[in-house]
């Protein structure tokens, strides 16, 4: 078992706590960079989708997992990011500028949504954000001159200095880079006063106030950043699906995003990535299982949502901290082998405040 002796405060502040972590993350980075060379472009495309989900997940995790504000309306931010990016591109803006503007615009919409949301918590906030996403859906269907209404709109191709970003492997690297940047930004936030203020608001609003934290400001900031990351993901998502239509951003998308952070593990950035892999690859896994199983099973309709639901229920009952929580336990098992005690986590099945209805 590893024991990290801390001799400087900086060790605690750094993103990597010890060289073992550095080694594994470098290895992971190398592996991810090599993926497009060794895999079929279909799988590379699926991986980019996972990265896009993860970027949106970073945003949602900041809001739900770290500030304790539930949102059932994140598909709306994804939609705003996607449509804004596509529209800016059709207006002839350069690709990076368009993406940045789309993300900023979504962030500002997020901050505006935060104003009424400041007065609500728990289930009421969930319903309010749900209403917001319905409103956005309606605006998209009826604002035909910009969004193309029900017909939808084609997303212009991604080009930087007339170099196309649309090939599977280039797009993969673009998404990977944005995901890495988003994760680093979120982790930076969480180790600095702004992020700690969010955590304080999540765990106790009264005592956050007593510590001099401005609730309204902190929650607005959380919505701003959360929407910003999700808007960025929306912009990339637009390229991924190529053609935008209102039915791509419904309540189902919102729920999927929320499931992603819950199944991944609330209150952890690892959880975001695990959750994104889960919701990104599960449909493929189910399709694969269908092919491999006898016709009696393979022909059952609606297999995918059923498995999805089943896994979710199992997680909520047995592992509220999600895939990340499970991973931590498995890791500890190997670290302490053969001395691991099953009771170590017996009393730790605690829920975040977000999950309780207040």
């Amino acid at each position, binding site marked *: 078992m590893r024991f990290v002796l801390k001799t400087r*405060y*900086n060790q*605690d*502040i750094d993103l990597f706590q010890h060289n073992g972590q550095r080694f594994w993350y470098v290895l992971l980075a190398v592996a991810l960079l090599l993926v497009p060379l060794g895999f079929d472009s279909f799988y590379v495309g699926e991986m980019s989708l996972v990265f896009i989900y993860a970027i949106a997940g970073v945003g949602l995790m900041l809001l739900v997992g770290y500030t304790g504000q539930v949102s059932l309306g994140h598909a709306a931010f994804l939609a705003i990011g996607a449509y804004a990016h596509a529209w800016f591109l059709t207006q002839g803006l350069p690709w990076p500028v368009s993406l940045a503007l789309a993300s900023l615009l979504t962030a500002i919409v997020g901050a505006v949504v935060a104003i009424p949301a400041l007065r609500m918590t728990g289930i009421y906030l969930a319903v309010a954000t749900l209403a917001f996403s319905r409103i956005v859906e309606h605006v998209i269907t009826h604002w035909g001159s910009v969004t193309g209404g029900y017909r939808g709109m084609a997303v212009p191709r991604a080009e930087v200095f007339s170099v196309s970003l649309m090939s599977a492997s280039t797009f993969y690297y673009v998404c990977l880079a944005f995901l890495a940047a988003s994760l680093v*930004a979120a982790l*930076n*936030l969480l*180790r*600095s*006063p*702004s*992020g*700690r*203020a969010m*955590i*304080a608001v*999540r*765990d*106790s609003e*009264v*005592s*956050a*106030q*007593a*510590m*001099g*934290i*401005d*609730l309204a400001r902190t929650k607005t*900031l959380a919505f701003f950043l959360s929407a910003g990351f999700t808007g960025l993901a929306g912009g990339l998502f637009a390229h991924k699906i190529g053609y935008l239509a209102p039915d791509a951003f419904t309540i189902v998308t919102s729920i999927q995003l929320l499931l992603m952070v819950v199944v991944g593990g609330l*209150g952890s950035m690892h959880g975001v990535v695990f959750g994104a892999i889960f919701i990104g690859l599960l449909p493929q896994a189910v399709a694969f299982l269908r092919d491999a199983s006898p016709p009696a099973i393979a022909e059952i309709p609606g297999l995918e949502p059923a498995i999805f639901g089943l896994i979710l229920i199992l997680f909520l009952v047995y592992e509220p901290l999600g895939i990340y929580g499970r991973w931590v336990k498995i890791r500890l098992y190997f670290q302490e082998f053969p001395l691991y005690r099953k009771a170590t986590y017996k*009393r*730790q099945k*605690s829920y*975040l405040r977000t999950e309780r209805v207040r």
Partner: protein
Amino acid sequence: MSLFEARDLTVSFGGIHAVRDLSFDVEEGEVFSIIGPNGAGKTTVFNLISRFYDVDAGTMTFGGEDITRLPVHRVAQRGIARTFQNTELFEHETVLKNLLIGRHVHRRTMLAEDLFFLPRVRRQDLAFREKVEDVIDLLDLQSYREQTINGLPYGVRKMVEVARALCIEPKLLLLDEPSSGLNPEETEDLSFWIEDISEDLGVTIIMVEHDMNLVTRMSDRVLAMADGLELAVGEPREIQEHPAVLRAYLGD
């Protein structure tokens, strides 16, 4: 001029007068206790000072500044820290993180700097940690530094809360029943720490407390309340023998 002055504070919830025409002064460096039977309005006074409630009438000044209408999150900036009767800690974080949140009022960095974790943010965090470690040393919390709050015993949580309040570097510290739920030994330790905080750090303390032993030993002056009204103010000995106080606690 006193450090804290309350004049004719009045607040009522519906038909209940929680606090009525309450006036008192707290001098700099003093340990000032508020006692009274349950429902006397002691915690309400704390909630008024920390601005969780708005007063219906009356004024409060702190260090010469009128804080009667100060926004709640500015109170800590002015140097008023508090603890809660039933601890209100950040449950899912370590003791260290809790104390770092206590340094929030001293932050000077903006959001954009935080996102990129510029060198200035790191320097600020190092300075925060030095201060936090001073407080940990003062209250002997070293062995709990890396533990999350939800696994800690109640007595330790109480001290972590005091520590978090001290991280604000307050001029005035409000302790809401610091000894409730502590065993006699922990209460004994608490009294030494209160003494240290008062004498070594020079922090003025207002404390709501039921343990008369602790009150008598620690306090310079005591305010006795019942039904939202002031019964008496004075030195602990006087208060203990004051006829109105005896009547409130024991009946006629």
